[in-house]
């Protein structure tokens, strides 16, 4: 028994006992995320927000563009739960549609950012050399130009459609992701399992897709989660300046801007979208924190 030969007969595998039984690392991360109340609460809030946004596609309490459904500057009451604005439009209805805009902008930009940033980052980090040189220079150039300027110019050229705004914000936001993925790829490429894959004749595209990307996915998800509120805030800011989505489509930023001149007589017009915006930004940030803790293997006992 103790002198059993290395080539074991079927009844005496040394590996018959597992050191520890566990599911995949993803399931493990999910288990840890579930224990984080703040992150879980934020996730629930965001799901509710998503549900509200989806409902608003089909139904809102009042039509969002019709003016004078309520007295102007109406404070919240039982008919108009969040009151009405200076044109007598129902704020709750507009807030619901605004959620749609915010989520579309946040998630939309991050999808573009993820696709572009991950691709560029993987290529720069894995192939290094002159490719990396060009990409790194490009990243630094984009960091050098003020993002507001870029976005403003793009919006002026392309117009104020939601898709154009998403594109304009993505153009100013892809560098963080690219830089993160490049760094991850850089260090993962030196790991022995990547060397082992190369040694056994794995082609570069497969090394990137099977070995490097899945191991960088944790930080990518975290980065994207933190990127969503940044994009939402950026859109709100553009709308506040009057350069966001085309009215009458309500955006939280535009709603706040609308109420700004009447802040003394009807503060709720500014407060309602501002609070919605803050809660959403906070929720995404808490969720991002929770995801980081859950996905970071160094946190492991």
């Amino acid at each position, binding site marked *: 028994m103790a002198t059993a*030969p*290395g*080539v*074991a007969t*079927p009844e005496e*595998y*040394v*590996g*018959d006992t*597992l*050191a*520890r*039984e*566990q*599911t*995949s*690392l993803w399931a493990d991360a999910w288990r840890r995320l579930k224990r984080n109340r703040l992150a879980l609460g934020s996730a629930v809030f965001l799901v509710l927000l998503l549900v509200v946004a989806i409902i608003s596609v089909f139904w809102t309490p009042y039509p969002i563009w019709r003016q004078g459904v309520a007295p102007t500057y109406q404070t919240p009451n039982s008919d108009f739960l969040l009151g009405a604005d200076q044109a007598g439009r129902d704020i709750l209805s507009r807030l619901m549609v605004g959620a749609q805009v915010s989520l579309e902008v946040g998630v939309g930009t991050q999808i573009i950012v993820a696709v572009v940033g991950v691709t560029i980052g993987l290529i720069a980090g894995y192939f290094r050399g002159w490719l990396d040189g060009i990409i790194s220079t490009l990243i630094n150039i984009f960091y050098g130009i003020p993002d507001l300027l870029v976005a403003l110019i793009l919006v002026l050229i392309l117009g104020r459609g939601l898709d154009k705004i998403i594109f304009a914000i993505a153009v100013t936001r892809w560098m963080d992701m690219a830089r993160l993925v490049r760094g991850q790829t850089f260090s993962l490429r030196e*790991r*022995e*399992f990547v*060397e*082992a*894959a*190369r*040694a*056994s*004749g*794995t*082609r570069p595209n*497969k090394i990137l897709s*099977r*070995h490097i990307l*899945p*191991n960088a996915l944790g930080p990518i998800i975290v980065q994207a989660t933190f990127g969503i509120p940044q994009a939402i805030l950026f859109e709100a800011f553009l709308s506040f300046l009057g350069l966001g989505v085309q009215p009458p489509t309500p955006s939280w930023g535009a709603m706040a801007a609308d109420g700004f001149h009447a802040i003394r007589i009807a503060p709720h017009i500014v407060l309602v979208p501002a609070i919605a915006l803050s809660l959403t930004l906070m929720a995404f940030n808490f969720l991002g924190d929770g995801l980081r803790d859950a996905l970071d*293997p160094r946190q492991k006992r």
Partner: protein
Amino acid sequence: MKRVPERAPLLRAEEVVKHFPAGLGASVKAVERVNFEIYPGETVGLVGESGCGKSTLGRLITQLLPVTSGNIFFEGVDLTKLSGEKLRQKRRELQMIFQDPYSSLNPRMTVGDIIAEPLENFGLLRGRAKDKRVQELLRIVGLNPYFNNRYPHEFSGGQRQRIGIARAIALRPKLIVADEPISALDVSIQAQIINLMEDLQKEFQLTYLFIAHDLSVVRHISDRVMVMYLGKIVEVADSAEIYRNPRHPYTKALLSSIPIPDPEIQSKRRIVHLSGEIPSPVNPPSGCRFHPRCPIAQVPTPCADLEPPLEEKARGHRAACHFSEKVPVAV
């Protein structure tokens, strides 16, 4: 002895050099003009202390790193001249076992996928046949074949090293470079892995380059031993001969430093003191690289200004020392 010297070598390294850029125009001279052969079916041990270039040399042979200059002939084909698909095809015959059983397996892949990957890379087997082969490989390395859906982190260090070995033999390679395959494992597990590697060698006619820092392990598993110091091979001999009759003072110092688990012998041994520490490979010493620490060096001539060639001192025993006959015998 398994070695049949008349046969053509499986691998021949000629004047292999590897320099890494170290900034400001300096370079780390990790491997400097190294020559050696590996014959089919033998195990060659490569020992040396950290930073001597042994792991780099292993990666040059498996072409995970490109050489700076020199040639590596594998069955007569110069690996350093190959690239792209031609090199990839050659990798089937040249595999590697890594030191760290924790970082050498992709944590996001199942054990079955890890072992199957080399087979897929060359389109050797598909579907059921591939699964069967993976299970067979698991059984060969002593693991339960039904663990193929498990993830690496569910296994202990020794078990993981077995997975790494299964991956390395999946393509039935001719040469396996094992880079410190047991140094991360517990003592009681080390013997399991050494025995497994020896069994596999017999079963599949493998040739090993076994890289380690522990001369007693290397001596146990190897037919021949090469000792490296600061990027150079300083001595090559049969493993019994190198222990009984070291011809390089560095080998002698290494041998005297290795503790023997026997208090009576240990209390009588005297270690050979090497003065100072290993110099930087950015600016290696002139002449013999070992001379600043050598107890028998004659400075400046010849040791500090003349580099001793690695030459035959006895049959099958090469050493790079001007005064190899002065190295005291017996440990």
